[in-house]
């Protein structure tokens, strides 16, 4: 695919939006969330995941319309709505960046380092995501396009070589209860990951090519719900004890007794996805703030330091982060991830119709 002449840092193709959407949505839903869901609603975890992913996909429709209209920054809406939305997105993205950065650092420190030194992992990881965030959305899209082949390789190998020990009975009987709704509510912060894509501008010539995006959304639904089903059928109630689901289900841990545990390939591939996801969040915060004050490079550096400092000093451990983000603050995520895209779209649509009538 040749680069469009007027490409800016937020210009992306639909195929790139598709890959970004996949990484934005899936990365942290297959790490710690399956355990939380299993603890909250047991065998019905897959159903809770299905409901929330369906909701996310519905909201994505609004996000994608905004991206096709040139992105939130160039949208013709009232200044009050635009500025309000940008402030909420910046705050929401930063909060999410702190949560997911803690999960990411915890996972990396546990699996790749003996003593789990958070500060060293942070020091290595934060500059990388800050740099990608600073470079803009089309660089994130390029990184995602490179990483997706490795992700696909891990998924395909895991499926082809799997010695699946799961039992369908472990996710039966299907008895949806109030606990499903409770867990959907409690883990709101882990959902609605498409808001950063509101800053993207889908390249004008490709705005009617929706097939890659539709394929991606279908795959997101099937993959995440399927993952939770597989996870719960393999571990049953033991799912509540497993911190990091993604590495556990990957085949490399079980390939051969002589090879031993091979976590590295899976962790490294997942880290690529996490880099894209976190740079999307940091990038959204950068874009939002740059709308008011400019200096994207400086903003990216300052935000990276802020996120790093919070992760190091304020987030004592993953359990503390989990307790905080599943508390009242989760409703802020509902505001930034669900209310804002719909409000911005409604404001734009109203103004567009009024202009058309005039």
């Amino acid at each position, binding site marked *: 695919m040749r680069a469009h002449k007027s490409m800016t840092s937020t210009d992306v193709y639909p195929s790139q939006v598709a890959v970004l959407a996949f990484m934005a949505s899936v990365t942290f839903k297959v790490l710690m969330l399956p355990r939380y869901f299993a603890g909250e609603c047991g065998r019905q975890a897959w159903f809770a995941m299905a409901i929330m992913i369906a909701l996310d996909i519905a909201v994505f429709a609004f996000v994608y319309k905004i991206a096709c209209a040139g992105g939130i920054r160039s949208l013709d809406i009232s200044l009050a709505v635009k500025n309000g939305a940008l402030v909420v997105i910046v705050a929401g993205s930063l909060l999410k960046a702190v949560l997911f950065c803690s999960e990411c650092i915890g996972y990396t420190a546990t699996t790749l380092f003996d*003593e789990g030194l958070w500060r*060293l992992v942070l020091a290595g990881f934060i500059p990388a995501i800050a740099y990608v965030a600073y470079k803009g959305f089309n660089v994130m899209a390029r990184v995602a396009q490179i990483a997706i082949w490795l992700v696909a390789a891990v998924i395909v190998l895991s499926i082809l070589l799997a010695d699946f020990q799961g039992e369908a009975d472990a996710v039966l009987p299907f008895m949806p209860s109030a606990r499903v709704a409770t867990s959907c509510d409690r883990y709101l912060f882990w959902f609605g990951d498409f808001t950063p894509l509101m800053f993207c501008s889908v390249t004008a010539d490709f705005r009617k090519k929706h097939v890659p995006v539709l394929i991606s959304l279908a795959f997101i639904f099937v993959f995440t719900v399927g993952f939770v089903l597989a996870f719960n059928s393999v571990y049953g109630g033991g799912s509540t004890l497993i911190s990091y689901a993604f590495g556990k289900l990957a085949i490399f841990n079980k390939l051969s007794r002589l090879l031993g545990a091979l976590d590295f390939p899976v962790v490294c591939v997942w880290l690529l996805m996490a880099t894209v996801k976190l740079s999307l969040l940091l990038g959204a915060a950068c874009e939002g703030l740059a709308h008011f004050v400019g200096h994207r490079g400086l903003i990216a550096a300052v935000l990276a330091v802020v996120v790093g400092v919070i992760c190091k000093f304020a987030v004592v451990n993953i359990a503390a982060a989990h307790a905080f983000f599943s508390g009242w603050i989760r409703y802020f995520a509902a505001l930034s991830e669900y209310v804002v895209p719909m409000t911005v779209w409604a404001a734009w649509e109203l103004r567009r119709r009024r202009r058309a009538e005039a």
Partner: protein
Amino acid sequence: MSKRPASRKWIIIPLLFVLFVAFGNLSSGINLLDRAIVVGLAIDGSADEIELSAQIVLPQNGGVSSGGGRFAVYESKGATLREAIEALSTTTGLRASFAHTDVIMFGTDFLRSGSGDVLEYIFKSELVRDTALLVAAPGEAKRLLKIKLPVNEVVSYHLIEMLQSNRDEAGQNPMTLQRYFFNYFTVGGAGYMPLVNVVKETEGSLTPDSGKAEDAYRLDLSKTVVMTREGYLMRLDREESKGLSYATKRLNSGALPYEEDGERKEAVILDTRFDYRAVAEDEVQLDLTLICRPAEKSHSQGGRQVGVPGEDAKAQIAGAVQSAVEQCFNVCRDEQCDVLGLGEVLYRKYGADFVRNDYLSRLKLDVRVSVFTK
């Protein structure tokens, strides 16, 4: 493209490279060179003091499964498992790596003293792969690591081979870490693991490596230890362990003795199926199907197939299997331990309301066995 971004790129790339190399060396990143590779782990002691014994590949020699002095057993202690592992690294002088640990042995003394936290810690901490096999040893598990076996003197490897090759044999109940916690969290959940009995095989036999006369032993895995969420519960004997294997696994090997024409014969299991059905709130039906063949080759004689178990023999086999399963069920019901997972069967049909704390005491198990020959 202007020159400025390009020059900035060439500053950032080497900077990141230096940063990663520097941090890679500063941190205690996992590498393969300074590892003490643990192939088998024995856990003893009590809830207050954990004693670890680890069979480790000596790094200068590499490791071969036949042993030959290339393995050593190191011991350590600690108030917690984490402390004991750190102490193990101090003892060996190398950081202990559990990536190749495929068998974890627990002394029954330790299991009795409250081992739940340790097992949970192992599972949660991702210390070992969840395909690692769990076994119990009578008394102290560390004794297991030190015995000499005639076939393969590396006990850990020998045990793994036994557990893996006999995985689907009647009477064997191998248990992985993953499966243990799967069972543990089912309705009325109970976990189990094989009990390794050391049987003295020969006295003063010559071993090829040492040339010295040493006692040789063999390992027997025909008994099973049952654990509940509260800890160690009981030991299933040989027949009860067989019953457990018939009722919980698809088997493809194992002998089924019977008598025919005044002779003692054996049939060999080819395949089994089991299917639980809740027929009432206090009754579960287990349909067991066994497909087997005679141990000795059958042949045709005068239009009659000789060597194939007849109807009477099939009834004997079915009776023995039914009796083994019922023995296992009865002993578990007496101890209020749902090792067969019957609470799950009831839950799936009747929902949570029907599965009360005392469901086992009033539960009946109707075992129906069908035997087919090939």
